[in-house]
């Protein structure tokens, strides 16, 4: 399973800006729902989170300390 950004459908206003800005085609509209498809090409650029006007889209990071 490929980790993908998350979307809160309650906050999404279907403006479509995330779909427009996504370079890898990971965000699609299915009916009236913005959805992610799991693809390796998503490099977590976080532009979808940055452009979302309602804060519906989140690209969270897990923070870990490298074992030496």
């Amino acid at each position: 399973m490929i980790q993908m950004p998350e979307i809160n459908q309650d906050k999404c206003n279907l403006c479509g800006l995330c779909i427009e800005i996504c370079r890898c085609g990971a965000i699609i509209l299915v009916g009236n729902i913005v959805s992610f498809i799991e693809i390796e090409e998503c490099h977590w650029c976080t532009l979808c989170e940055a452009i979302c006007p309602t804060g519906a889209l989140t690209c969270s990071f897990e923070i870990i300390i490298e074992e030496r």
Partner: protein
Amino acid sequence: MAIDSNSLTVLSYFSGLSVAELEVIKQSFFEKTIQRGEMIFLEEEPADILFFLISGIVKLFKTSAQGKEQIISLARPYEVLNDISIFDNGPNPMSAQAMSTVTLYGIKKGRLEVILRQHPQVSSRIIQVLATRTRQLISLVEDLSFKHVIGRVAKILLEHTGDGAGPGQRLTQQEMAAMAGTAREVVARSLKAMEERGLIRLERHRIVISDKNALQEMINQEV
């Protein structure tokens, strides 16, 4: 394509104008479509046309002498793109690139000046828009010069690391910004700076702290 006066009403410069006034003003505008990836204008070039974004997304950015790109903002529909250079007669302070297929409304500087003389209330709206932006920039200057944001972001990272036994807590850049009391863009810049110094690695959906001690030193120095 004909200019849509409904779109003009949404532009902050022209809110409050009557339908009749907008019908006259729209005659001065033209529409332009730009494809994803194309440049709309370049930093340091003179500007003669004021552009409003009607649909799509535009990246406004500066490029350093070393060719490093710094995103200033991502413009959303109905934002004005280049008012600074139009009103101070200087060159564009930043470049603009279409991040999707983009529709712009443009107006030549000379035509805009006629509108400003005929409709002084538009000037008042523009002053308000520029004052709001100045307030935002003052806040950004405060962040960059006084708050030592990078130290705060470093502290947030160390306070939210997983223990290795299970998945650590997950944070978005927006959440880190809220914790550090700054803008998301400043967090993004801080993370990049830490990566360039070899303190962390940004790996897809993980931030890997590669030099915990150096990060701690950064906190001690800056917080």
